[in-house]
């Protein structure tokens, strides 16, 4: 479980495209999330003014996340909430995915780095969109000598963001793999459940929350006055 397995190699236009365990597991997580979203969309027609049951769950989820983003970012920037709701559900369900014995997609660097790169692009684009020249000027603060240091600081943001999530998920995976391979069979009943509960559910939720809130703070720092 320590190495990411490679399932197939596709040849597309002369390039080797590797379908690894990570990509395959991400597809499964995505399929579950998309099916849930389609069910919610189909039930949307029968939604009433006074919610009950399934509608209650969906509405409270969306509302809690909207309020969370609005409280962190302010009213003006709160339109990024849908994207971060997607990131939150993807990352949290992929860490929940490893409780049933698969490798979590976030325990591979490519997944977390892709998400962090999107945060970085949003930071730059929204910074230019909301502050225009002032964002460029903020790179020259307090003096033009500091320009390379500021650029390096901006570049370090997605790297540290992705390494944090990746390191936490990978350490959980490694500890569970060590437990599964090194202990006798009798100790593999019950105890891994507690380990999964701590490393996947609790740490998974905490790291997802931290990933989202730090992305929001980076975007806010770039785009807000």
């Amino acid at each position, binding site marked *: 479980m320590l190495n990411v397995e490679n399932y197939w190699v596709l040849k597309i236009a002369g390039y080797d495209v590797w379908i690894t365990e990570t990509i395959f597991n991400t597809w499964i997580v995505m399929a579950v999330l998309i099916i849930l979203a389609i069910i919610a969309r189909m039930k949307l027609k029968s939604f009433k003014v006074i919610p009950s049951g399934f509608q209650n769950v969906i509405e409270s989820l969306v509302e809690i996340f909207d309020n969370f983003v609005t409280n962190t970012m302010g009213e003006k920037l709160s339109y990024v909430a849908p994207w971060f709701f997607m990131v939150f559900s993807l990352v949290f369900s992929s860490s929940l995915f490893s409780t049933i014995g698969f490798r979590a997609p976030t325990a591979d660097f490519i997944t977390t780095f892709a998400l962090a790169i999107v945060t970085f692009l949003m930071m730059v684009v929204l910074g230019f969109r909301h502050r225009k020249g002032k964002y460029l000027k903020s790179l020259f603060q307090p003096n033009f000598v500091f320009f390379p240091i500021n650029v390096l600081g901006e570049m370090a943001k997605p790297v540290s963001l992705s*390494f944090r999530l*990746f390191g936490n998920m990978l*350490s959980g995976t*490694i500890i569970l793999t060590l437990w599964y391979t090194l202990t006798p069979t009798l100790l593999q009943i019950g105890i891994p459940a507690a380990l999964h509960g701590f490393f996947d559910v609790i740490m998974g939720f905490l790291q997802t929350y931290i990933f989202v809130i*730090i992305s929001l703070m980076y975007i806010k720092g770039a785009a807000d006055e």
Partner: protein
Amino acid sequence: MEQALATIISAAHIGAAIALFNGAFTTFGQAKIVAQAIESMARQPEASDDIRSSMFIGIALSETSGIYGLLIAIIMLFANPLVNIFINFVS
């Protein structure tokens, strides 16, 4: 040759152990953050929600150095850069 390889592998393991040492210092920093946060929560219970969210952000930011050490240890143990350099050098 075998002896040199054994020396290199043991050096990589010792390096990984030293890299994991910064977990101790990271933990000290995090303990300080949490202690301060609890103190201010006890002093101002109505502001505890704000303090809790900033506490989590501070913990996560200070955890970065510990994660870097963990990654260096993992690279030393599983990716074996030193052994690859040695094999290239010999062949």
